[in-house]
Structure formats: structure tokens, C-alpha cells
């Protein structure tokens, strides 16, 4: 049976969202988080996963509310700790696809340690970091990805800190898959998320978004539409970026898959540990 594109989309939302129970959502009108949620469920659908196979784990913040709306096994954990909760779950349920949704403050400030160590272990989780450069839910405080010189409610004279480059951090820490796209490039974002979910190992997708309610207002960046247009104009592919002159590169958001490497996944390696330990017992040694 050929399903028309529009019908298929409606089926996706019927199938993956807790539509009749939990909407309207808590996010501000014009927010990019809903686009990321749409990209995730389309990716899950494209990969062909059943709802039961998927767990979505979040931390605290605007992104933390996403699991309420999706019809998976969902857990809204404590601030910054989503990856650590997910690590425990993945270890005892390695067959499940565990998607961890975090914001920039959640993943990189309070949860920064868990982020680099999950990447170092290369445990098979998919980390989706929605980067809006600010703490949105608490009202616009500077985050680990707020650009230097930008303003925030806690940086009233300008931010003097450097932002974390999320993808480079993930790469250096050992992630198997690292990609970035934006909420304007929703289909590409969904494609990257699908690749990430299928990757065996720790996969990271940075979804560049915006917060027009706090960051945009404080920095006079205009409405949600204008901030979205900024992503459209500044979001370039790696190829385009490389062709640019040095002075044109500064304000660009590079999109693409930066890392896709095959490294042994943690739970698989642990299965070998179990085999080794049980062999030791069978051999009558106590290790």
C-alpha cells in the first residue's frame, strides 16, 4: 500500500505522540524544541523501531519536558544526570534504543562530567543536545554555550566566558558518531538523528535552536521567525564552510556529520567480561 506523504506524517504523530493525553505542551510559541521532537519521532519511524523498543530520558529544563509527550518508555530525571540514568538502563537493557534529550546547560554545565565520560565509554546511547545558548526555563541566564560578549540576565555587562564547542568536545571525548544541524534544517536533523540511533556506540547530535523569549529578547535578536532566519542564513554545510574565506567563517553554524567511526560499544564489551568471568568460574578459579 502506498501511503501519501501527508497521511504518513499524520500516522507518525498518531503513533508516537501521547497526543490525546498530554497536549498542549509547555514550550513557548515559536520554540524550536517541538521541531527537534518531530525530528526524533520521524527518525524513530524511519529506522523502523516500535515504541516499546525506545526509551527517552531527559534531564531538567525546557528540553526535560519532551519525554512527557512521546509514547515511549520515558523518564524525566534530575538536572544534568540524564546520561548517567540512561547508562544504568542501557546496561541492563542493551537491546533498547535509549535516546537522551538534553539542553546545553543540562548536558554541558551540570552534566558536563557525565557527557564526556559517556562518550569515553562509548556506551550505546544517543545524546541529542538542543543548543539554544541559554538557560531558558529559569529565564535567560548564561550557559556553557553562550557566545562571549553576549548578554544574559546573569551577564548584564556581557559574557566573559568562552562557549564549549559541543561537537569537538564529543569527538575528543571519544564518541562514535557526532553531527550537527539546526531546527531550520529539520529534515536533515531528522536524518542525522536516524543515523545516530542506528550507530552502535555513543552518538551525539547537536540540534542548534534558539530562545527568542529570553536570549533573543535580551540580545535584541528579534522574533522567533528572525532567529529561525538566522539559522537558515548562517547554517552551512561543511563543504560550503571549507570554501569560505577565513573572515566569512566566523559567524557560521557548520552542519554535517563530523565523526562516524567504529569503536567497540560498551555493553558489547561487557558481555565479553561476563563470558570471561563465567569461564573463570567454570575453570574453578576465583579470578
Amino acid at each position, binding site marked *: 500500500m502506498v501511503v501519501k506523504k501527508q497521511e504518513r506524517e499524520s500516522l507518525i504523530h498518531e503513533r508516537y505522540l501521547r497526543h490525546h493525553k498530554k497536549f498542549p505542551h509547555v514550550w513557548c510559541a515559536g520554540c524550536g524544541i517541538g521541531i527537534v521532537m518531530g525530528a526524533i519521532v520521524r527518525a524513530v519511524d524511519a529506522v523502523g523501531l516500535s*515504541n516499546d523498543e525506545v526509551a527517552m530520558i531527559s534531564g531538567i529544563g525546557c528540553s526535560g519536558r519532551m519525554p*512527557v509527550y512521546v509514547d*515511549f518508555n520515558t523518564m524525566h530525571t534530575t538536572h544534568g544526570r540524564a546520561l548517567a*540514568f540512561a547508562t544504568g538502563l542501557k546496561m541492563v537493557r542493551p537491546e533498547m534504543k535509549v535516546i537522551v534529550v538534553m539542553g546545553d546547560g543540562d548536558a554541558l554545565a551540570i552534566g558536563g562530567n557525565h557527557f564526556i565520560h559517556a562518550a569515553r565509554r562509548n556506551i550505546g546511547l544517543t545524546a541529542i543536545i538542543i543548543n539554544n545558548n541559554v538557560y531558558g526555563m529559569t529565564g535567560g541566564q548564561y550557559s556553557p554555550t553562550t557566545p562571549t560578549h553576549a548578554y544574559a540576565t546573569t551577564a548584564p555587562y556581557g559574557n566573559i566566558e568562552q562557549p564549549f564547542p559541543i561537537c569537538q568536545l564529543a569527538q575528543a571525548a571519544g564518541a562514535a558518531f557526532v553531527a550537527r544541524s539546526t531546527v531550520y534544517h529539520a529534515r536533515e536533523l531528522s536524518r542525522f538523528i536516524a543515523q545516530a540511533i542506528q550507530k552502535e556506540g555513543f552518538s551525539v547530535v547537536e540540534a542548534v535552536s534558539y530562545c527568542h523569549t529570553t536570549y533573543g529578547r535580551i540580545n535584541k535578536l528579534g522574533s522567533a521567525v528572525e532567529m529561525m532566519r538566522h539559522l537558515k542564513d548562517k547554517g552551512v554545510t561543511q563543504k560550503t564552510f571549507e570554501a569560505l574565506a577565513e573572515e566569512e567563517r566566523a559567524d557560521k553554524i557548520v552542519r554535517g556529520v563530523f565523526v562516524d567511526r567504529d569503536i567497540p560499544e560498551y555493553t558489547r564489551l561487557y558481555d565479553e567480561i561476563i563470558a570471561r568471568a563465567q569461564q*573463570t568460574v567454570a575453570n574453578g578459579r576465583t579470578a
Partner: protein
Amino acid sequence: MTGKLMQGDEACAEGAIAAGCRFFAGYPITPATDIAEVLARRLPQVGGKFIQMEDEIASMAAVIGASVGGAKAMTATSGPGFSLMQENIGYAAMAEIPCVVVDVQRAGPSTGLPTKPSQGDVMQSRWGTHGDHPIIVLSPSSVRETFDFTVRAFNMAEKYRTPVILLMDEMIGHMREKVELPSPEAIEVVERVSTSVPPEWYKAYENTPSDVPPMISFGQGYRYHITGLFHDERGFPTQRLDEIDPWIARVFRKIERNLRDILIYEADEIEDAEIVVIAYGATARSARHAVKQARARGYRVGFLRLGTLWPFPEEVVERAAERIHRVIVPEMNLGQLALEVERVVGRRKVMRVGKANGEMVTPQEVLDAIVRGVSAWL
């Protein structure tokens, strides 16, 4: 089975295996590291999993994640790490996730005396995480009892869907005793309550008659939501008082109505006593010795040893102290459990024998208190 020389920490690890624990996440810390080391070796032998996390915060989080996945799960730490775990212990209490947290107490605050015993975390084990919540805390006094209490901690965690804290101390953790472990058939192991209702009927936080709603693991076809926010019966966030209040009432009720199962204590020669010594953990060993000596000298001294510290066994203590003039509470802190005893029996009856310098309370110190207690009242 013949006896075996064993440390408290080892007995804890073996008790966990016997109770069905199949997941451990932890971070090295004296004097609890031995538990992690034994389990790193033992868990994969029985098909379980061990992970050394990046810190104690992550350890506690991973334990909860594993429990949600269906494994009986545990972590072990000491004071500084226990402090770091508190936020996620609160999460486990709020989300009603079974798990066992072992705290092998060392002298504090802060880094304190890492290799010296303490009972300084009695109040932290009760109130370390923010907000009102029920908790179960057990404190063993011997190596063999550490094994037994670890099993019971898992049983209570699973039966009542709650975090359970095993409050050991450095003395019990590192002491070697000859123990005879029970055969596997002789160990009662409890599994969490499950259900076979169709997924669409399942409510993870239903107000059931038993007050303990069945818990189904993630990945079993029962998709539901877990959160640290106040939630409705299906687990979704709520701010409605008619959903919050029943939840609070239920989680306290599920503990209070099962005190007969939860409260572990041992009362000795209380009936004719004029003085009673109430002790727990390693200090109970000194106290028991002192009580014996005092009895031999003709003092009518009773002994009450508490295995369960929280919920505080109010009625047990009240009954023991009913016709008694003096209650002596020796402990390796400056009177944390004594505060509770005072609350129950009245401040004027209680003599504290407290020490927080990393030294054990000696039998002589307890004996002196008994003698002082008798003469003060004569």
C-alpha cells in the same frame, strides 16, 4: 557449610549477590571500596553487571536507571559520596524506584578521617535529601548481620518500592569475623510486585489497596512516564492537590503499615531492668559487653539493639523505657539517635555517650555511664 573469615564489606557484597542484586554502580571511596572490588569480580560471574562511574552522583543515577530496567541494583559509598548521592536518593523516593544504598560511615564532616569509624550519618540517612519522604535505614552490628541485612535491604526495597539505606560503619566494614553464611535455599528473597493487566490499564503509581503499586520494567510493552516531579497515577507531572496529597499519604502509609516487617531490633533483659542501654551498629558491641559486666556486678541493666534506625522504632523504645529511670545511648556521633530517643522517652531520662573523633565508644565508657546513671537516680 564451614565458617569463613570475612570482612563486613565482603559480606555486604555476598549478601547483595544472594539477594539477587545484578547491577552495581559506584565510585572508589574508603572504607567502602572493598564492596565495589568484590562485586566487580563477582557480578559478571552470575551474569550481573558492574560499572565504575565518574562520581557518586552518576553512580546513584545509574543504579536508578538499572532498577527501572528491571535489575536489583545497589551502590556503596561513604560520607562524602553519600552527600553527593542525596539528590538522586530523593529522586528514587519520589519515583518509588527500589534500590539499595550502602554507606560505610567514616568520621566527618568533609574528608574527615577516612579510615576511622563513625555513626555520623544517622541524620543524613534520614534527612539528607530535601523534602518530606519516607526512608528505610538498617544498621548491622556484625559481619554475619551485614550479610543478612543486605539481603533484607533488597527485600524491603523491592517489596515497598523504596530506596533502602544500609548504614554500616568502618569498624563493621573492615572487621574480619568467622562467619557461616546461610545456604541459598535458606535465604528468603523477595521480588518486586508485578502485574499482568493489559498495558493500557497499567498505572505505575496507582493507589492500590496494598499501597505499593506493581512496577514493570522498561522495555516490557508497558510504556509509562517516570519523573521527579509530583505526578498523577500514570506518572505524569501534576500540580493538582487531589493528586499530590494522596501520593504523599500513600508513600508514608506503605511504610507505616508494614512496621512489623521493617523494624528489626533485639531486646535483652529489659523486663526487670532499671536502666536500659540503646545502641546500634559497631557501638552495640561495646554496649553489649558493658551491659554484661554491669549485670555481673548486680546492676539491673537492659539492652536494646536497633537494627532498623529509620523509621525510628518509637513504640519499641517507648515500651523498653516505660518503667525505666535512665536510658543510655552510646554512639559514634554527638547524639544523633539520642535526639530521637529523647523525643520519645523525654530528655531528662537520656544520657548520651557520644564520640565523633574516629574512636570507638569503649565498653568501659558505657559501663561508667551505667554506674553514673544508677548513682544519679539513687
